[in-house]
Structure formats: structure tokens, C-alpha cells
């Protein structure tokens, strides 16, 4: 018996030491703040520190990190929650503290087919009021796939909307008379800015900012206002692009990926007049969201771009210098789940959403904070 206890003690001490060495190695710790979200898609932060979380199934929720409570916001527009469609991105107006406006992207079913829609509303005591649809994408399709659906406010208070290629309509990403495979730019009330790029085609839609995209689920800007977008490739060819107005990003005429049936979509990877990504991933890791990190909680991460991924179930930390990716680190693999969104909170922590795909109410909010706090 004594021998068993002795060996047991040695075993415990050995593993405690191993664990502490491991824990010391990591500069961060992961903490699950909430477990039980139903396919969460995006997260944003209210000025009072609460989190706004969208669920693809059509619910908008407010999470209070102090009390760890979750409240469902009422009067959210009804959405088409099917396949990849549903309630998607949340974006607070830059002057939210003055106007309480939030912007939501979601898929809807119309007579012509289903498509992406963007609405704005005032958040008033856990209810949305004064709901106003400000954009309906001219990208009607039968599938519930490839909506894009990311929103981003630029420094001039105009709003970018990523609109995906609708899967079956990829060739339309090269045409300018529709919203398939485009990034759009509108004013905060839905009107079209006067300084949008002008395309030399008569039928070009005036809200198009860039074209030639596939399914762009990442849209962010750095501290200098430079816009970054990432998009899912097909089999291989996930891309990270720097977005400049009026440019063509090539899909599906040039691509680093191939089709799901193994055939070539295009044998070309480059063409004059079509932009190259600053990084691409083959095989695909299924890029889902991204955020720049500007806080001193993790000084070694300052200015880095964090990209979440679904199929690889990790986060990529990219060091970018002179608009080029100089290094990539795979992080947070220990979460072991599809990562749907990543955001940098106002207090400097990273907040991660896992979508728990396949299992109802198994999405999590995970906080990444310094290990020494």
C-alpha cells in the first residue's frame, strides 16, 4: 500500500510540474465565459462592457461578463436561418453612444430567391426599435450559401458590406450588374456615397467598392485605416487581401484553389488587372473572422492580425510589415473546436466564439487574457 501511495505521489508531482512548466510557457490563459450559444456568428462590444452576440438561428443576445448572464434582444428582424444563412454580423455605429444604432446583416427569403440584407435599428433596453432596412443585395439565389455578410465601418462613417458569390453564381463575381462576390460601400443610412469608385460599364451598380470575391467572411481595418478582407477559397486558395477601391480581386478567373469535384476552376493564378492576395492557404483552413490587436495587455502581439478558422479549428496570428505577411503562428489549437469569430475587446483581451456546429447550444464565448493576471 505504501508503495502504491509513493508511486501515486511521484506521478502527481511529475504531472503537476509538467503542467506548471506548460502553463508558464504560455503568456495567455483561456477562460470559457459562456457555454450554450446556438451557432453564434459574431460578437461586438457595447460601451458598458456587455457583449452583443448574434446567433445564426436568428437571435441577438447580450452577455454580461460581470454577472455571466445572457439576455435575448427582442424585435430582431426575422431571418432565413438555413444552411449558411441566418443572422450574421453585428456592427455598432461609430457614434453608437450618441445614436444607439446597431447594424445587422442577415439572409432573407424573397420572391426572387434568398439574399443578404442589412438593417439598422436602435438598441433600447434590450429591444430593437426603429428598424430600417438599408440594403438588400442584388444577389438572389436558391442556395443558402456564400452570403459573405461581414460589415465594417470605415473612418469616414461609410459602411462596407461583403456580399458572397452565392456558390452557384461564381462567374457573376466578374460582372458589375449584381452584388455576387462584391464588397459594397454605402452611407450609414443606406444611400450611396458620392466618392464610390466609378466603373467603365453602363450597367455597373454604384455601391460596388471592389469585385471578384468569393465568400468574404473577414473584414477589418488596421490602425492606419487600411482595409483587409479574407475569403474562403474552394478546395484550397483561402485568401487574405488588402482592399483598395475599384479593384478586381480575380475570383473565379484566377484562383489558388480547385473545385470540390477536383477539377480546375481556372488554370490561371495571376492576370494583369486582377489583384493578388497578400497570403493564401492551401489546403483551406476556412477563414471565418479577423481582428487587429492594439492593446498593451499582450505587448508582443501589438499590431498583429488574428484570423479565426473553422476547419483547422485554430487562430492564425499574422505579423504584417509593409503590407506583407512576414510570419504566421498557429494558436489556440487547445480549444479544439471550429472558431467562428475573434474580436479584440476594449480591455485588451481577445474574445473568441466557437460555433459548436452539429450540436445545438454548444457554442462558447472564450476569453484570452494574460496568464500573469
Amino acid at each position, binding site marked *: 500500500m505504501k508503495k502504491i501511495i509513493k508511486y501515486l505521489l511521484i506521478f502527481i508531482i511529475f504531472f503537476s510540474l509538467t503542467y506548471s512548466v506548460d502553463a508558464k510557457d504560455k503568456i495567455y490563459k483561456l477562460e470559457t465565459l459562456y457555454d450554450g450559444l446556438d451557432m453564434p456568428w459574431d460578437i461586438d462590444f457595447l460601451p458598458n462592457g456587455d457583449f452583443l452576440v448574434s446567433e445564426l438561428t436568428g437571435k441577438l443576445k447580450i452577455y454580461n461578463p460581470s454577472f455571466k448572464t445572457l439576455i435575448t434582444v427582442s424585435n430582431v428582424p426575422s431571418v432565413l436561418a438555413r444552411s449558411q444563412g441566418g443572422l450574421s454580423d453585428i456592427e455598432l455605429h461609430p457614434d453608437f453612444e450618441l445614436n444607439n444604432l446597431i447594424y445587422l446583416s442577415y439572409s432573407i427569403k424573397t420572391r426572387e430567391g434568398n439574399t443578404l440584407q442589412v438593417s439598422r435599428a436602435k438598441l433600447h433596453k434590450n429591444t430593437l426599435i426603429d428598424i430600417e432596412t438599408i440594403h438588400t443585395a442584388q444577389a438572389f439565389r436558391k442556395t443558402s450559401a456564400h452570403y459573405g455578410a461581414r460589415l465594417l465601418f470605415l473612418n469616414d462613417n461609410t459602411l462596407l458590406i461583403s456580399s458572397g458569390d452565392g456558390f*452557384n453564381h461564381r462567374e457573376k463575381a466578374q460582372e458589375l450588374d449584381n452584388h455576387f462576390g462584391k464588397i459594397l460601400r454605402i452611407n450609414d443610412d443606406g444611400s450611396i456615397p458620392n466618392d464610390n469608385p466609378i466603373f467603365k460599364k453602363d450597367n455597373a451598380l454604384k455601391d460596388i467598392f471592389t469585385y471578384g470575391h468569393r465568400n468574404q467572411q473577414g473584414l477589418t481595418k488596421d490602425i492606419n485605416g487600411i482595409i483587409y478582407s479574407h475569403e474562403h477559397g474552394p478546395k484550397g486558395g483561402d485568401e487574405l487581401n488588402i482592399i483598395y477601391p475599384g479593384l478586381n480581386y480575380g475570383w473565379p478567373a484566377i484562383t489558388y484553389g480547385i473545385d470540390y469535384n477536383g477539377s*480546375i476552376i481556372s488554370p490561371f493564378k495571376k492576370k494583369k488587372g486582377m489583384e493578388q492576395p497578400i497570403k493564401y492557404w492551401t489546403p483551406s483552413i476556412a477563414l471565418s473572422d479577423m481582428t487587429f490587436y492594439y492593446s498593451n495587455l499582450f505587448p508582443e502581439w501589438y499590431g498583429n492580425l488574428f484570423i479565426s478558422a473553422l476547419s483547422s479549428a485554430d487562430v492564425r496570428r499574422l505579423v504584417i510589415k509593409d503590407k506583407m505577411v512576414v510570419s504566421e503562428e498557429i494558436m489556440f489549437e487547445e480549444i479544439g473546436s471550429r472558431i467562428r469569430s475573434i474580436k479584440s475587446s476594449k480591455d485588451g483581451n481577445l474574445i473568441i466564439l466557437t460555433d459548436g456546429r452539429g450540436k445545438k447550444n454548444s457554442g462558447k464565448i472564450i476569453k484570452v487574457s494574460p496568464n500573469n493576471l
Partner: protein
Amino acid sequence: MYLIKLFSSLLMAQILSAILTSFFILFQNTIWNILWLKTQGFNISFVILFQSLLHDLRGGLSPMLIQWGIPINMYGIIFIALSSGYLLAAIVRLIIPINSIFLYGFAGFASVYGIIFFTKITFDEIVLISSTRELMGLLIFCFIGLLGGIIFSQFKEFFLKVLTYEKNN
């Protein structure tokens, strides 16, 4: 012995039909993509066309679907679809004596259409074979299936004759 020879001839005809149908379907897909690229101002040389076709024939071996945990490639899907179609046609022919070429041709047509139909149901209207997203492409695709059915009908007779040749003489 005759049954074994009959089964062998059916199997050989089925394999030949599936291989030729797959080849033409993949060829159609390659040409479809290349033609679109031509409209976008790309210069397509014969070498690029040939390399693309070779790539697509090889690419057809990579898994396209995972069903019950089993990865299935393009060739597998076409083989399964045609087999099901021909089996149904054979049962119909036992009941109603319909012309073999017509019946198996129709079975081939319906089988490859079935691939598009069932993938659309399974994947929420997604059409995985890009050349069939437009009506003309879909018609050509189904016509290839029809040809596959006719090939099957002709070659099953041919192989059966070859295998039973010794017996008849």
C-alpha cells in the same frame, strides 16, 4: 456458367460505360470552364487545355462527398448513379419489353440528372458540377448520360457474345 458470363458481361459493360461517361462529363466541365475564361480575355493554348483536362481527369479521383463516413469521388458517384439506373431499367425491361437502346439510354440520362438532383437536395440547392449550373450545360450533361446508357446497352450484348462465343460454336 451462363449466369457468371452474363454477370461478367454486364459488369464489363457497366465499367466501360461509367469510364466513358465520366471522361465525357469531366471533359465537358473542363471545356465549360475554359470557354468562360476565354470570354474573360484569357489566352487558352492547346497545352493549357490539355493540361487542364489531364488535371480534371486525375482530380476526379479525389473525394468529392463523404457518405456514411466513406469518401466518394466523381467516378464513384457516376458509377453508383449509372448502376442504379441500369438496374432499375433491367427490372422495368423484365416487366415491359422496351427497346434496350432506348431504355438504357433513358436510364443513363435520368441517372446523371439524378446526381444533380440529389446533390441539390443534400446540399441545399448547391450544384457541385459547375458546368451543369446553366440549362445548356445541364442538357449536355444529361445527353452524355444518355450516350453512356447506349454504350452500356450495346456493350453488354457485345461482351455477352464474346464470352458465350465458345459455347455457341
